[in-house]
């Protein structure tokens, strides 16, 4: 009988191929040039574009002030930088937290009825004529140099949007460390994939858009609760490119519990599936969109399927082996089963193709995380992140993949925080 693990081979092959693609692309000229790109010179303010950063808030009283402070600390000419705090009908102390910036010359405050994040962003866009419009989630904080690192990316007229290098803000528990490693993997991924114009998300924490592109394409949409992904896909569909500034560091708060993480990722994954299988289906396999259409989006879809399949397969094999072991070992004292008896030699190591390929995929992933930290010069210790990523990530991801695919299959829609 064919071993069930054979089913996983094609997915492991694709995973190794994609990781190799990222590694090769990192070494290619465009990525090297992106890493060497100089930050904007702020000595001559007249040569710099005007920038507005919109901070959409809904019940963000705890963090909005610190977010705003970090924006005010950006090294960018004051007359060229505006910050727009948008209170999207908060029911907590967000208005009071915002009020302390009311007199600040760089800050504008907008209050509106609750309408969702995309409406808050659009309200901010409507209130500015800045050449570059960005957004920053109210639970995120930027390094003072971040904007200077991003502005030069707009030198190319085809660039419609620019993303930053995200990591987790002061990770404390194991789950946050795990997400930090994942986010830093994302730094490597975005940096490499941007050099072949394959990005399909402009994340809420510190992404910037060319004003005229927004004017041409229209403002943010609901986008199945992933307005940042919908906007990025629309920009790609229109033929613009999305750049990445690997040295522009931004830190965001990550969910601290598994339940909160599951909710967040279910929203992201179901948003991806609904966007990509719906309005933006035409991007998949489209030669006109190069790496995005032929490689990145198909791989992202396959990754969802393979995540579920490999998890189910591993679970099936674990349960099967555990059941067989239990049946075999039942009745015999546990001390005998656990005792180390004379082994049969080194060659008896179970050299499974599946196991070795799995270890190879994991090893390259950990290497790419380390590379991401180095490229972005993200501070902090990654050891706990790498350990938790190795042992925990693979167990949690399938949960939100299953939840999201079930939601999409059944047409179930959840609230933002459900």
């Amino acid at each position, binding site marked *: 009988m064919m071993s069930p693990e054979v089913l996983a081979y094609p997915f492991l*092959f694709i995973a190794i191929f994609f990781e*190799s693609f990222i590694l090769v692309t990192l070494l290619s000229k465009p990525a090297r040039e992106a890493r060497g790109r100089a930050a904007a010179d702020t000595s001559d303010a007249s040569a710099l574009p005007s920038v507005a950063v919109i901070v959409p808030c809904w019940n963000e009283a705890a963090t909005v002030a610190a977010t705003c402070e970090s924006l005010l600390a950006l090294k960018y000419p004051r007359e060229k930088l505006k910050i727009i705090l948008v209170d999207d009908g908060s029911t907590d102390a967000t208005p009071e937290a915002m009020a302390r910036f009311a007199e600040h010359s760089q800050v504008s405050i907008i209050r509106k009825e609750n309408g969702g994040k995309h409406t808050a962003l659009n309200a901010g866009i409507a209130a500015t004529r800045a050449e570059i419009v960005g957004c920053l989630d109210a639970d995120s904080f930027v390094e003072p140099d971040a904007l200077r690192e991003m502005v030069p990316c707009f030198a190319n007229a085809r660039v419609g949007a620019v993303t930053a290098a995200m990591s987790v803000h002061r990770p404390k528990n194991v789950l946050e460390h795990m997400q930090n490693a994942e986010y830093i993997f994302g730094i490597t991924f975005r940096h490499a994939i941007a050099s072949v114009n394959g990005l399909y998300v402009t994340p809420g924490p510190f992404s910037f858009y060319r004003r005229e592109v927004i004017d041409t394409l229209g403002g943010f949409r609901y986008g199945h609760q992933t307005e940042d992904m919908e906007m990025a896909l629309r920009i790609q569909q229109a033929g613009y490119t999305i750049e990445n500034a690997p040295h522009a560091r931004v830190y965001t708060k990550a969910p601290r519990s598994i339940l909160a993480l599951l909710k967040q990722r279910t929203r992201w994954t179901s948003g991806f599936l609904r966007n990509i299988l719906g309005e933006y289906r035409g991007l998949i396999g489209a030669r006109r969109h190069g790496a995005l259409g032929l490689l990145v989006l198909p791989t992202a879809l396959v990754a969802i399927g393979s995540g579920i399949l490999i998890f189910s397969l591993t679970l099936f094999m674990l349960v099967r082996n555990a059941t*067989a072991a239990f049946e075999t070992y039942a009745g015999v004292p546990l001390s005998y089963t656990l005792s180390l008896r004379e082994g049969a030699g080194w060659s008896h190591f179970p050299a499974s193709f599946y196991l070795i390929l799995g270890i190879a995929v994991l090893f390259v992933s950990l290497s790419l995380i380390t590379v991401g930290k180095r490229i972005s010069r993200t501070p902090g210790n990654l050891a706990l992140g790498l350990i938790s990523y190795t042992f925990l990530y693979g167990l949690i991801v399938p949960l939100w993949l299953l939840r999201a695919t079930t939601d999409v299959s059944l047409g179930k829609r959840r609230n933002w925080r459900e």
Partner: protein
Amino acid sequence: MSLAARNALIALGITIALVGTVALTVKYLNRSLIAELGAIEDQLSIDMLSLETQFSLLEAAPCDSVASSATLTSELENMGSRLSYAEEQLGSDNPQVIRLKDTYSLLEIRDYLITARLADACGTKPPVTVLYFYSNAGDCADCDKAGYALSYLRDTYPALRVYSFDYNLDLGALKTLIAVNDVRDSLPAFVINGKRVYGFSSLSDFEKQFPKGALSTSTPKL
């Protein structure tokens, strides 16, 4: 060619090289396992000769080769566990595995006979012996359980002698052993000191089939 296409081709080359290397490594490890089987085969041949010599020695001077027989038994057990691993990895229909099992079974039968003859010749109480007949053709649901329980009993009670035989092995001597002991095709089957037992439910039930006092951790006086 675009940068993405060029990179994709290079990545494909790397992937094929990596997967190929892994495939070769797994093949190499399996080969070393086969090489080890060769070593087991050599060892079994030497042990066969050793047993022949012991038989001769017994005829000349009964009771003098007790120690060497015990040593041989422990070597047999070690080879047995390696052989079962090889069978698990290479399949029970692998020709080399079948050949080894034939030789191993012959060796076991000889050891069984020599042990009985020793006790008889020296007038000592014979050790408790278990002839265990199994099948791995998928028709013996309880064989894994029985095999593990017997390993435990053998490791816990050193005086116990366990001989395992693949019931389906096409070996004349084994067929004779089965016929002599009148063992039915209902597996797992055991012959415990001449008493036939069929089936295996639990270790505690199985232990009840042994003669009283047979399962003792103290080494019986031979």
